[in-house]
């Protein structure tokens, strides 16, 4: 027969030595790498549970010398956070066992029916179930962390009263209010006074349409009194059996600032392009025009000295313009560096 090589520490709490030996036999028949701990009373069992023995599963007889029944099951459970507990009971106590099961005990076994197969299955199933529940809790925590530990400020608010219901850590840091303060505030308290009408309109509009996603760029006021620009994304979610709105606020103050700087630079670049197009080409086209004229006139024209002088003047003018463009472009570079 193939034995399970799962390495487990099993605590058997059983004051009847005969029953214990039987259980031990069954277990050893199925598992090859288990450690079995035996305790005969609630008190001594508690010591083992609290020790560093890392118990994986508990088999619990419902009648012990110092405690029994529902109270016993409850007390053991209170002292074991997520160790599966399997109740061992006789036919007469089935109703009690069922009741205890509803308290969160993993399973129960009728002593007279226990055989290695049933015991093995019950243990394996209980462990599986526990790890599944552990997984679920972990998922729940992951989602909570997504909210609480998100680097982006987020909050939940009640769409009718506008009160904050929950606020994440990033929002607390960004806005400067504590969680308790936030919970006594409404959305209006993070708006500059002149923006409140705008806020009401926006909330109503989104409330009616149930719009999810990007809501717009708004001005928010921090506790320090500083105003920031935020991009708001929102969506309706169910929270404690109520539909509320989840909001993500992305501070774009710096981004807008950069954009403004880039726009200013663009204006300067356009100026340079305009200069290229108009100012540089003016003397250049004059030079070319004079050359056309010289060609037309013939080289011994009496106006030749005049025209050549005009060529020279236009050439000098162009020289000055090109130098100006170069220094303007340099200025643009310097401005760019300073802002970094």
């Amino acid at each position, binding site marked *: 027969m193939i034995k399970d090589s799962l390495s487990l520490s099993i605590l058997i709490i059983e004051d009847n030595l005969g029953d214990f030996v039987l259980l031990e036999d069954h277990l050893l028949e199925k598992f090859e790498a288990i450690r079995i701990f035996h305790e005969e009373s609630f008190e001594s069992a508690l010591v083992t549970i609290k020790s560093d023995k890392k118990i994986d599963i508990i088999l619990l007889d419902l009648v012990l010398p110092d405690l029994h029944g529902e109270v016993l099951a409850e007390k053991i459970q209170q002292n074991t956070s997520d160790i599966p507990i399997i109740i061992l009971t006789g036919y007469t106590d089935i109703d009690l066992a069922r009741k205890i099961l509803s308290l969160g005990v993993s399973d129960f076994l009728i002593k007279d029916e226990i055989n290695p197969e049933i015991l093995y299955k019950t243990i394996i199933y209980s462990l599986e179930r526990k790890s599944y529940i552990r997984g679920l809790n972990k998922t729940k925590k992951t989602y909570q962390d997504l909210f609480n530990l998100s680097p982006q400020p987020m909050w939940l608010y009640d769409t009718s009263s506008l009160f904050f219901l929950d606020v994440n850590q990033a929002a607390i840091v960004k806005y400067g209010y504590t969680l308790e303060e936030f919970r006594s505030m409404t959305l209006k308290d993070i708006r500059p006074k002149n923006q409140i009408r705008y806020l009401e309109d926006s909330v109503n509009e989104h409330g009616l349409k149930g719009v999810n996603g990007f809501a717009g760029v708004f001005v928010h006021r921090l506790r320090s009194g500083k105003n920031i620009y935020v991009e708001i994304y929102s969506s309706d979610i169910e929270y404690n059996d109520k539909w509320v709105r989840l909001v993500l606020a992305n501070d774009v103050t710096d981004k807008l600032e950069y954009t403004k700087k880039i726009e200013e630079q663009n204006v300067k670049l356009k100026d340079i392009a305009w200069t290229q197009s108009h100012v540089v080409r*003016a003397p250049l*086209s004059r030079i070319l025009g004079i050359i*056309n004229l010289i060609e037309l006139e013939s080289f011994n024209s009496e106006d030749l000295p005049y025209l050549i002088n005009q060529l020279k003047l236009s050439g000098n003018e162009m020289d000055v313009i090109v130098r100006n463009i170069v220094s303007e472009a340099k200025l643009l570079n310097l401005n760019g560096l300073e802002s970094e």
Partner: protein
Amino acid sequence: MGWRVNKHVLLIDDDPIFHVIFTRMINKVYPGLSVSSSLHGKLALEFLNRNYSIENQYIVLLDINMPVYNGWQFLDAIKKKGIIRNNNITIFVVTSSTDLDDIKRAKAYGFVKDTLSKPLSVNSLNSVLQPLVNE
């Protein structure tokens, strides 16, 4: 030469060198055309107010970047005048600008016949003036 109508070229440009260049060129190629020049749009309008005759044919070579009244202001002003509807004023925008926006903007005026880039060579001047002179 024997043209039935009096043909007149009006240069509007703030650069006097161009007045010299254009006037010389036109005199050389079409000695019969009379050429006047104005340093900006306002002076050109005043010239037209004084000298306009329905009997005459006017060819306007208009610069854009000028002080006082630039090319656009001249175009806007003449648009409001009734004389533009007599079809005896042909306007060419002649600019050193290579800016496509300027060219588009000029073409938006229905009565601007074409835009030309400075400097005008004898050939391009010919292609503009020839059809008008030989009418």
